[in-house]
């Protein structure tokens, strides 16, 4: 280590052996984008099949493989790693640290991901096909009745969990130990706060998921009957275990997105975030509540009425801190001096659409009404409003917001805005009508449907194709920026941006904050 101020190594080894948080962040982001495209292409197959009534392109078995892999790839391959990538890039720069606390583990937690998804994708070519039991893989469909490839699926989930846990430990260690002098907890940017809380959620629930798939493995290969009633087990136990992971998981996905929005809106409102402290407390209470609402996914399994009531009340309660966040963002914009560059457009898009998703969430929380909504397209609409218009829109906002800082080049604003508008229109065209068909009685996860659902499904498919196509524009814009964007050298890039990362030179050098800044 003679020369401490070395730059990146050359060639492939730079990426294979890197322990640099920026390199690792970059790899996470590119990897998650690749998975976004892969999962997106599965979605295109689904929407193409559903374009019209009747079976046209694929058979029902393959259709189920598509819905399953689409969900798994999007949740575990696209959304989660993308926010880990953002965390890698930004957390050290936001808290004034030179790197992540555990850089070698950081390298490892990224590099186990690509082979894992290779394994998962390869199940498509195995005998009996890929897993076809939905991303929620309910037993016994995923055990006694599963294709042989389920064992590879279980292995993938184990490794993904490992990667997430390592990533979270790293984030916790970094935030707790490596803040610059003066950077107290209540001065941390909200993105850091939301990630810290998310990391704790991950450490708490990924082992539960590992437990669920291990029990599946035992049932399939070692003769146990955790989930098989014939052997004295209980299929509903699977759902309890899964959703004890699964509900916090949806907040794992959305909390970092909240963090991004809480950085972007103040910057383009040129006004400090309203209610910083209440944002932190709201995030913490959402995280806490997320552990006691899991059975709202199971209102129809036949729980005792007391359980039903408990989970209904607890779920309704989550709407309160979620509301606080939305009110805070809107009040941040109130009497600001707003401009509408691409990141802000995506943030406003997020704000509108996530709120709609929150409302439908509140509707789903009403247990008696959920008897009609559950497992219908209404639920599909709900979670795409929170996951796509929530997590993915905020990711787009974040990329446009920080990309100039990272590479010292400005993206093409007109193209960015076009990307936003096409996404926004395509997304709503795809998912708003799904509320209608769901309420009219269309179940989810079906490859073909009755004639009365035809019009809205066609709209939905058209919208989905538009949304899908708009991502190509995004890819093009990002590459064009990195290769030939207009250079920016202003440290702040955006006149309203606040925070330590904006005090660094643009583009951000390979090593930053080798001597910690002093935060006043």
């Amino acid at each position, binding site marked *: 280590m003679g020369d401490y101020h070395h730059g990146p190594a050359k060639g492939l080894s730079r990426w294979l052996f890197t322990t640099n948080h920026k390199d690792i962040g970059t790899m996470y982001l590119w990897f998650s984008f690749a998975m976004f495209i892969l999962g997106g292409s599965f979605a295109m197959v689904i929407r193409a099949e559903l374009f019209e009534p009747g079976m046209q392109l694929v058979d029902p078995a393959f259709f189920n493989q598509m819905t399953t892999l689409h969900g798994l790839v999007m949740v575990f391959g696209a959304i989660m790693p993308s926010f880990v990538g953002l965390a890698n890039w930004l957390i050290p720069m936001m808290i004034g640290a030179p790197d992540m606390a555990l850089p070698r583990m950081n390298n490892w937690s990224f590099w186990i991901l690509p082979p894992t998804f290779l394994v998962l994708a390869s199940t498509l070519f195995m005998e009996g096909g890929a897993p076809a039991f939905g991303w929620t893989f309910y037993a016994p469909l995923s055990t006694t009745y599963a294709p042989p490839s389920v064992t590879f699926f279980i292995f993938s989930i184990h490794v993904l969990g490992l990667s997430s846990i390592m990533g979270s430990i790293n984030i916790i260690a970094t935030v707790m130990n490596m803040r610059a002098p003066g950077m107290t907890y209540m001065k941390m940017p909200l993105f850091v706060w939301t990630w810290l809380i998310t990391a704790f959620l991950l450490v708490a629930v990924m082992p539960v998921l590992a437990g669920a798939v291990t029990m599946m493995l035992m049932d399939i290969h070692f003769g146990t009957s955790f989930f098989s009633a014939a052997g004295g087990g209980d299929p509903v136990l699977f759902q309890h275990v899964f959703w004890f992971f699964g509900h916090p998981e949806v907040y794992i996905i959305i909390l970092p997105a909240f963090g991004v929005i809480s950085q972007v809106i103040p910057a383009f409102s040129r006004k400090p975030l309203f*209610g910083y402290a209440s944002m932190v407390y709201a995030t913490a209470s959402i995280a806490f509540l997320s552990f006691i609402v899991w059975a709202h996914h199971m209102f129809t399994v036949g729980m005792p009425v007391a359980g*039903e009531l408990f989970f209904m009340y607890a779920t309704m309660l989550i709407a309160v801190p979620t509301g606080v966040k939305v009110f805070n963002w809107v009040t941040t914009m109130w009497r600001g001096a707003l401009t509408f560059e691409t990141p802000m457009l995506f943030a406003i898009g997020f704000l509108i659409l996530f709120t709609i998703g929150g409302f439908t969430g509140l509707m789903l929380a009403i247990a*008696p009404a959920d008897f009609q909504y559950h497992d219908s397209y209404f639920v599909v609409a709900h979670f795409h409003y929170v996951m796509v218009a929530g997590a993915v829109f905020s990711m787009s906002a974040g990329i446009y917001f920080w990309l100039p800082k990272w590479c010292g080049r400005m993206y093409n604003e007109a193209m960015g805005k076009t990307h936003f508008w096409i996404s926004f229109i395509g997304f709503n065209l795809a998912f708003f009508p799904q509320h209608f068909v769901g309420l009219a009685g269309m179940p989810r996860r079906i490859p*073909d449907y009755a004639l009365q659902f035809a019009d809205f499904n066609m709209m939905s498919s058209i919208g989905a194709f538009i949304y899908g196509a708009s991502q190509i524009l995004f890819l093009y814009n990002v590459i064009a920026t990195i290769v030939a964007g207009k250079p920016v050298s202003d440290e702040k890039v955006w006149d309203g941006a606040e925070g330590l990362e904006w005090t660094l030179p643009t583009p951000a050098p390979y090593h930053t904050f080798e001597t910690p800044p002093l935060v006043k």
Partner: protein
Amino acid sequence: MSFQAKRLCKLTLGPVLMLTSALVLAAGGETSQVNMSPGVTEVGKNIYDLHMIILGICTVIGLGVFGVMFYSIIYHRKSRGVAPATFHESTAVEIAWTVVPFLILILMAVPATSTLLQIYDNDDADLDILVTGYQWKWKYEYINENGENVSFFSNLKTAQGEIHNLEAKGEHYLLEVDEPLVIPVDKKVRFLVTANDVIHSWWVPALAVKKDAIPGFINETWARVEQTGVYRGQCAELCGTNHGFMPIVVNVVDQSEFDQWLGEKEKDAAAVKKLMAQNFTLDELMARGKSVYARNCQACHGANGEGGVGKAIAGSPIATGDLATHMDVVIHGVPGTAMQAFGGQLNDVDMAAVLTYQRSAFGNNMGDKVQPIDVFNHKKG
């Protein structure tokens, strides 16, 4: 057009486009329903009311929030030369918007709780029906305390040709069955819901009933339908390949009509019992076997025995081999595959017929007859 106006147009373009297209379609095709229907039960109406109340609350709050936001977007833009304010907290406001939603939710919880309790009141039913989910059909069994239970399977009736776009699709495409569930109007009918293999979910929107069918467990739910008619639903829980193809049809009739129907079913059951003792000709067995095959086997083994989810029957070593092995496969199924045990699903007459059919159709030419008594003896071991 001023700059703001242009801006506003742009900003509203998306939602407006979307809404108008939705409305045009909704108005144009009268078939496109956009809201939940109150259905034909009191529970259904209560659920519908809950749905409309919570939707109303959300709409009002949403209009408020988006109203404030759009006001800012229009009037607090930098291009108007405004200087940004610097306030960043207000304890009073923050407490207010925590407490007020909380109170609204408590108000909402009251009717939700009472409807839930109503749904959970499973007592004092006039009629009990055991509903069992199979991959991929429903079995209905009328529990009769002083006699034999009447039971039957309810399969998708839609032709494969309609599904594969070879013929025109009928009005009730995918929502039609060979034998609907029949229940009396204005009676409290209790459904005991379970499953034979994986989890299914019995959902009829008009009855406001959705209950998961879980192997090894029996869930209870009920409906008192206020209007005669035919109501349609589908399996709501992913249950494997043909999850999209196991509809539910409920025919709600007057009590007298119901009694008559049930009486006939009981007679039919008695008739089948008699047939069990009978010997059939090859032609009789083949004719009956063909229809049994079409109803129960074709979905997996293909209309011409060419296979699909299941192995090919044409030229199958099992169907053209030892009869006892063939019987074993069909009666007990092949564990761990989609090939279920049909022993409990088909009566001995139908079983004999379909076995005979498979052995001599699709180019298989075993030519042997399987009689109901053979099936009976084989089952006994």
